[in-house]
Each structure stands twice: as structure tokens, then as C-alpha cells.
């Protein structure tokens, strides 16, 4: 583990917001320094997109595995979770301490409005590319989820599982 590129993982997770920016930082540090090939990096990036949960964490797990086996995978995952997690926890502590201050409360109200815009924007940005092919099937799934999730008390995790099962049939890639 003495050769493990701790700094590359630390930099990616502590100085960048979001997976895309962190992935670009890791690519620059790992591929350009010859620690991992471009093909292996791209494989990790692609498979991370297929892994449930946070894409960035799946990607660093695979990169760590490539670099240093299971120990590398565990180290990369631990660093990429613990460092920004600690920063987020500290930011929350500050927020909890100052939430009652009038200026902080007003700022937080503005931040909430911004966060809502980000949430809606993220859903639209992620949704639109899903209609590039098999539009009827994709739209049918979206409509069914909207009806069940928006107007009934159908449990949402169950809805996601059912959508996955339907998608496995309707949206599968023909071999």
C-alpha cells in the first residue's frame, strides 16, 4: 500500500463537487501518471454507472481494486466516503448551531429554493436521455410510475423494484 495514490483519491473527493468533476480529477491523476490504463479507467467508469448507489463510490472501489486488490478497494472506498462525509457532518454541525440566526435562516431559505431547483433540474437532465430509443416503452414506464408514485400510496422502493423488473423485459438490449 506504500505506492497507493492516496492523494489522488483525497483530491478527487475533497476538492470536487459531484461525480463528474471528481472522475475527471481521478482520470488526470491516475491515467496521466501511468498508474492505470485509459481502458481500465473507462471500464471502471462505465461499470460504476451500472452499479446501484453512488456512481463515484463504485468507481473508486473498482479503481482501488485494480491498483491494489481488495485492500486497495477498501482504502479507496473508505477515503472517498470518510473525507467528504466528515466535511458534510461538520457543515451540518455549523448549520444546526446557527439555524436560528435571522441572517442564517434567510440564507438557508434561499439555499432551499436553489436546492429545489437543482433537484428538479437533475431529474429532468437525467430523464431526457432515457427517451433516445424505445420511446414508447420508456414513456409508458415513466407514466405508470408518475400515476402510482404521484397519486397512490404505493411504496416507492417497491415501485423502483417493479420498474426494474419491467425494464429488464421491455428495455433489454437484444443480443
Amino acid at each position, binding site marked *: 500500500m506504500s505506492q497507493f495514490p492516496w492523494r489522488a483519491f483525497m483530491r478527487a473527493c475533497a476538492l470536487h463537487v459531484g461525480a463528474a468533476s471528481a472522475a475527471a480529477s481521478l482520470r488526470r491523476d491516475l491515467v496521466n501518471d501511468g498508474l492505470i490504463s485509459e481502458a481500465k479507467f473507462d471500464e471502471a467508469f462505465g461499470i460504476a454507472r451500472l452499479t*446501484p*448507489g453512488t456512481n463515484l463510490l463504485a468507481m473508486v472501489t473498482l479503481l482501488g481494486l485494480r491498483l491494489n486488490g481488495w485492500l486497495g478497494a477498501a482504502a479507496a472506498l473508505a477515503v472517498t466516503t470518510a473525507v467528504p462525509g466528515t466535511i458534510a457532518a461538520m457543515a451540518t454541525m455549523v448549520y444546526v448551531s446557527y439555524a436560528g440566526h435571522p441572517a442564517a435562516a434567510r440564507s438557508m431559505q*434561499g*439555499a432551499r429554493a436553489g436546492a429545489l*431547483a437543482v433537484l428538479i433540474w437533475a431529474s429532468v437532465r437525467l430523464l431526457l436521455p432515457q427517451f433516445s430509443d424505445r420511446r414508447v416503452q420508456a414513456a409508458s414506464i415513466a407514466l405508470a*410510475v408518475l400515476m402510482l408514485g404521484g397519486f397512490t400510496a404505493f411504496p416507492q*422502493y417497491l415501485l423502483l423494484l417493479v420498474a426494474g423488473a419491467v425494464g429488464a423485459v421491455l428495455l433489454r438490449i437484444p443480443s
Partner: protein
Amino acid sequence: MSLLTLYLVLLKATALSFSGFGSVPVVREELVLSRQVLTDEQLNDAIAISQASPGPLGLYVVTVGYVVAGFAGAVVAALALASPAVLAIPIVVLVRRGSDTYLRGAYRAIVIASCVLMAVTGSRLAPQAVPSASLVVLAIAAFVTLAATRVPPIAVILLCALLANGLP
């Protein structure tokens, strides 16, 4: 709420999502509506805080964990966020074998469902997030900025926080 329950709830939410905010609908359903250990306002604040700090977007669950159960809750939430990442290793094997035909279809449908549920959740968070006309205008301006420019979300949220101090 026990830490184990919090872990399992957040694991369920993160393991069924494929994007940073994809877990928001399940988190809201479980912690705000069902168990009532979190409010819509706190959930909105968690999203805002995560956008203004480095790391993956899904990290908002750490803030949620902290609000629900203090520092131990934040640690448990970080573990729940990290746990699904280990699934990447068996998925590599499946992809190399070419057995991902159905997997990709299933994941695509889950992304579609997550996005729809995120939008639905956004509409339900709106009364807390934008309780006045001026904040509605601010949120719309933020959305347009994000959609039409390359300004990063962190800058948009910080700008909204600043501008809110000058609103009537």
C-alpha cells in the same frame, strides 16, 4: 429510531438509486412521512448543504443521518452510502461475461422511475422550499440558470443563499 434501522432505511434508499438525488423519494417516504423523524424543511436543508460541500451528491444522506441521530447517525449514513459500491465488483464479472443484457434494461427503467419520483418529491417539497412568491421567482431563475448555462449547482445555491437576504 435505532442506528440499525436508520442504516437499513438509508441502505434501501441508496441501493435503489442510480444518481445522487435518486434516493430522495425513498428517504422522504421513510423518514419524513412514515417515521416522522425528519421534516421536509430539514430534508431540503440537507440537499442544500450537500450541494455546497465537496464529494458525491448522494452525500446529503450524511446530513440526514446527523439530523436524525447526531454524529453516530452521520457515520451510519456514510456506511449506508458506501455499502452498495461493493456491488460493482460482481457486476464487473457479469459485464465481462456479457450477461448484462437484462441488467442494463432494468437499470434504465430504475433511472426513469427515479427521475419521475424525484420530480414528484420536488413538487411535494416545494411548499416548504418556496413559501413566498419571491422565493418561487428565485427558484425558477435558479432552474433556468442551471438549464441554460454551465454554472455549477454549488454556485447557484450559494448565490440563492446570498440573494435571499435581499428579498422582501
